[in-house]
């Protein structure tokens, strides 16, 4: 075949492809309109029929009852689950008692020296002060509970994750199983992991730990694999040429070079574990999360803020420490630090022997009352400022009445359920093809069969509103930062800070201002997802090559034209990735917000975790959350791929 023919064929192929793309899009829109109209005419298609509920909750509840009554007798427990439980529990207890053996003052000192080492003097001083603050506000005990749970979770994650990463790197067969599993695991809101383990183990620290490990495992596995994969081949060849064995090459050449990636994975895993350990308070994991949870349930905002601050402090210290450790360069301070480290070790051991392990009560000081006062003041004064109809209350009402409720009504009953499924299928067909379409259809039907249709539409409505708000704020900010390095540098620490905070804690300041209901959940999720929206928009726009900017400019395009005609379309796939990330983050948060009256699937799942007679419904809600998350994830990813220009041949 000649080159010309080849080129002509390719061109034809492209034309038909883009032609069919347009045709399919028009077809999709048309089908949606028709579906809505057809079903709108017959009024008996509102909510998914209740009689179709397969009633999964009952067998689950029965299973739960069976499990509870057999916990001491059945071999499944005596031979298998109880030993695991005991071992894990022993590990946590052991770590906790070791941590508590050391004198209280060794912790601020160790943190100070550690952060000085990895991050510099300022960080060291701040670390010392903030750890002391945790003791001062009298959350010492609870912090140790959280720290012990964290420590064991992270340790187990590393022990499983690093070898698993190595295995996935070494064997394609393992990678083929591990990678999609991790992908699937990462799409699920962490909260959902709690449900099956509560079912199996009951409440307590053990199911908390297991779900934390599973939730947090993905990054360390993935980054270990990536790190090993990206070791330059030439260094491996060099090692082989010296007659190194496989093992020697792995130990001396591959792993050390993969170290930065593995550390990055460990950092992400640690942060995920932190956010999960806090959420695990829902199933009685204890610690700081429990304090926040209890305080939020009784709307003691002051107490919740104190525990929230302690959690944020712990998260930030762990983050700074685990990102700093790979690049630590104490420079001039190295010698001083070495002596300090020795001194602190001596102090810690001597203090431990003397038994100074209780944080002295004389140092306690609580700021909860002030926060409570401020909250009261805010409620009295900001809720409806001077009776003007401006304030957080009217704002909540406005968003609820104008957007959330109508959207929920629209999705759950105004648009007939078959039309909703039709829309999902058509979108799937348009975005990727028949397989995605079938998958979405099946998932939506499954939600209906679980009896979770209305609740799912409620959650979906909240998610859509939150996503819209996030994008309306985040995308323009991302556009600005992509054009302005100064702004970007200024915003970075703020965004980093918000990403470090465990999701659950974000609810605390929000309920201070907005009380309970759907709005605090939505606002917290907007705050939670905003950094991702800004970051990915910025990233997408920055990927547009400079030459293209210049080319556009050379045609005399204005800034606005350039943005609209050139940059946005080119960045579209990245922007869609931003949308994907935002949706996943928001969904995770909206679910947790079930706790503060967010309603929807989250509330049902929360109830399932807290009341043993509601486990079945909770389980159903959990499955519905997973299904909803997968639908949204696959669909947005498929659309992102769709927007990518055809790859070079």
């Amino acid at each position: 075949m000649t080159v010309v023919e080849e080129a002509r064929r390719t061109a034809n192929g492209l034309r038909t492809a883009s032609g069919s793309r347009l045709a399919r899009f028009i077809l999709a829109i048309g089908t949606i309109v028709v579906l809505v109209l057809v079903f709108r005419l017959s009024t008996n298609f509102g909510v998914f029929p209740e009689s179709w509920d397969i009633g999964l909750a009952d067998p689950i509840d029965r299973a739960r009852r069976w499990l509870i009554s057999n916990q001491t007798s059945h071999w499944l427990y005596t031979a298998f689950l109880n030993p695991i439980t005991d071992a894990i529990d022993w590990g946590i207890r052991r770590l906790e008692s070791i941590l508590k053996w050391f004198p209280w003052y060794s912790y601020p000192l160790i943190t100070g020296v550690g952060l000085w080492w990895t991050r510099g003097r300022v960080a060291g001083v701040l670390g010392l002060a903030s750890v002391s603050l945790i003791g001062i506000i009298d959350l010492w005990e609870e912090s140790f509970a959280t720290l012990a749970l964290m420590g064991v979770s992270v340790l187990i994650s590393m022990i499983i994750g690093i070898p698993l990463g190595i295995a996935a790197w070494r064997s394609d067969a393992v990678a083929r199983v591990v990678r999609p599993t991790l992908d699937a695991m990462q799409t699920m809101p962490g909260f959902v992991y709690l449900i099956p383990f509560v079912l199996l183990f009951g409440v307590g620290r053990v199911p908390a730990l297991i779900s934390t490990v599973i939730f947090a495992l993905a990054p360390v596995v993935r980054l270990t694999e990536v790190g090993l994969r990206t070791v330059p081949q030439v260094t491996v060849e060099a090692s082989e040429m010296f007659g190194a064995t496989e093992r020697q090459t792995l130990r001396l050449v591959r792993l050390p070079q993969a170290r930065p990636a593995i550390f990055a994975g460990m950092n992400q895993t640690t942060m995920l574990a932190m956010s999960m350990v806090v959420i695990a308070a829902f199933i009685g994991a204890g610690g700081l999360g429990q304090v926040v949870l209890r305080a939020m349930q009784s709307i003691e905002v002051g107490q919740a803020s104190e525990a929230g601050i302690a959690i944020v402090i712990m998260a930030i210290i762990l983050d700074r420490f685990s990102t700093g450790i790979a690049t630590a360069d104490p420079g001039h301070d190295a010698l001083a630090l070495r002596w300090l480290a020795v001194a602190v070790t001596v102090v810690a051991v001597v203090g431990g022997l003397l038994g100074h392990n209780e944080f002295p009560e004389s140092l306690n000081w609580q700021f909860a009352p002030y926060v409570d006062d401020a909250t009261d003041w805010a409620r009295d004064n900001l809720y409806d400022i001077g009776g003007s109809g401006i304030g957080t209350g009217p704002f909540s009402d406005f968003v609820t009445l104008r957007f959330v409720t109508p959207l929920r009504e629209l999705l759950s009953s105004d648009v007939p359920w078959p039309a909703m499924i039709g829309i999902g299928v058509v979108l799937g067909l348009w975005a990727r093809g028949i397989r995605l379409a079938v998958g979405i259809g099946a998932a939506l039907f499954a939600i209906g069969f679980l009896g979770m249709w209305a609740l799912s539409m409620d959650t979906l409505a909240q998610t859509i509103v939150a996503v819209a708000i996030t994008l309306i704020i985040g995308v323009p900010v991302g556009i600005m930062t992509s054009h302005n390095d100064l702004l970007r540098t200024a915003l970075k620490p703020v965004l980093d800070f918000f990403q470090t905070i465990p999701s659950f804690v974000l609810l605390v300041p929000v309920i201070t201002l907005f009380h309970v209901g759907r709005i605090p959940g939505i606002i917290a999720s907007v705050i939670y997802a905003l950094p991702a929206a800004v970051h990915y928009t910025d990233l997408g726009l920055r990927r547009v090559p400079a030459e293209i900017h210049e080319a556009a400019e050379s045609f005399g395009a204005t800034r606005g034209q350039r943005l609209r005609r050139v940059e946005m379309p080119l960045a579209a796939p990245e922007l869609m990735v931003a949308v994907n990330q935002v949706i996943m983050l928001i969904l995770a948060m909206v679910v947790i917000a079930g706790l503060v009256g967010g309603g929807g699937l989250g509330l049902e799942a929360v109830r399932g975790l807290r009341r043993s007679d509601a486990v079945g419904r909770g389980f159903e809600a959990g499955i519905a959350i997973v299904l909803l998350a997968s639908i949204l994830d696959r669909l947005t990813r498929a659309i992102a791929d769709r927007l990518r220009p055809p790859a070079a041949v």
Partner: protein
Amino acid sequence: MDTASETAQVRVEGVWKVFGRKPGEAREMAEAGATREEIQTTTGSVVAVRDVTFHVDAGETFVVMGLSGSGKSTLIRCVSHLVEPTEGRVELCGVELTRADHATLRNLRRQKMAMVFQHFGLFPHRKVVDNVAYGLEVQGVDRQDRQDRARELLDTVGLEGWGDHYPQQLSGGMQQRVGLARALAVDPEVLFFDEPFSALDPLIRRDMQDELIDLQMKLQRTLVFITHDFAEALKLADRIAIMNDGAFVQVGTPVEILTSPADDYVRAFTQDAPVAKVLQACSLMRPLDGTAVDPGWPQVSMTTPLETALPHLLGSTSPVVVVDEDNAPVGLLHGDDVAGVISENRP
């Protein structure tokens, strides 16, 4: 073209390397004379090395020269067995690598061979001294001993005092010195060089070439050296193999290649070669054969480039006397021969 010598330390016979899923079919096409592109479009396989045979004697510098993509790296990887040849025999220091098990191969690598890479292949996470000591570490040499040996070698390559730096902190030329020291540290009999100087600036490249020549004078190792730079090949080689499309086109001494290029492909290189700069008096001289040397004839040393000897020959009918280090005459350089080589290359 290969007369298997008794002293050969590297022996390569009929080596093929085909990347891809249909090596058999690709090979058949190659034997029928198809080019690499034709084979690739038909079978999807790449014939990187086709039927290469050669040997390298102990102490010899054997240079493989070819354009990029001609299969040089694949060939040297077949010889050092980083890549398994699809077919053929490779023998190193009397051991047949193509039949050896893992342990034999590993021991051979630990004791007999070493390689210097184009992009250095240094370990970025190890200090320079630990890079150099790597081969010894793998062999299980004590820390103190291997560090001493490594520092000794750093001195040899002119990097004393740089041991505690990391490779990234060094310039390209210095990094390749580290690469060289690392290879020499294990005291190998055979050294493989895969375009070691290609990534360096021209001036530094020349220094490195000169130093390699000096080192080789002292150490007398067997070198297999890959380059795409014909001038470099002429400068370093005892014998050169010209490679094209996976196969050897010609193997010979620099003079043989310059004076009788096998085909147009080789001629294309020789034409642009700075012959008069590269060739030295010793490579074109004729033996004395009892000729009485006239004391009035000009004298040059064996390593004098032709360029420098040329003025003595121009406008004179008498030959130039080539003398060794002790100023004893060893041969005669005739104007006709020099003119022959230079005109062969400037048609």
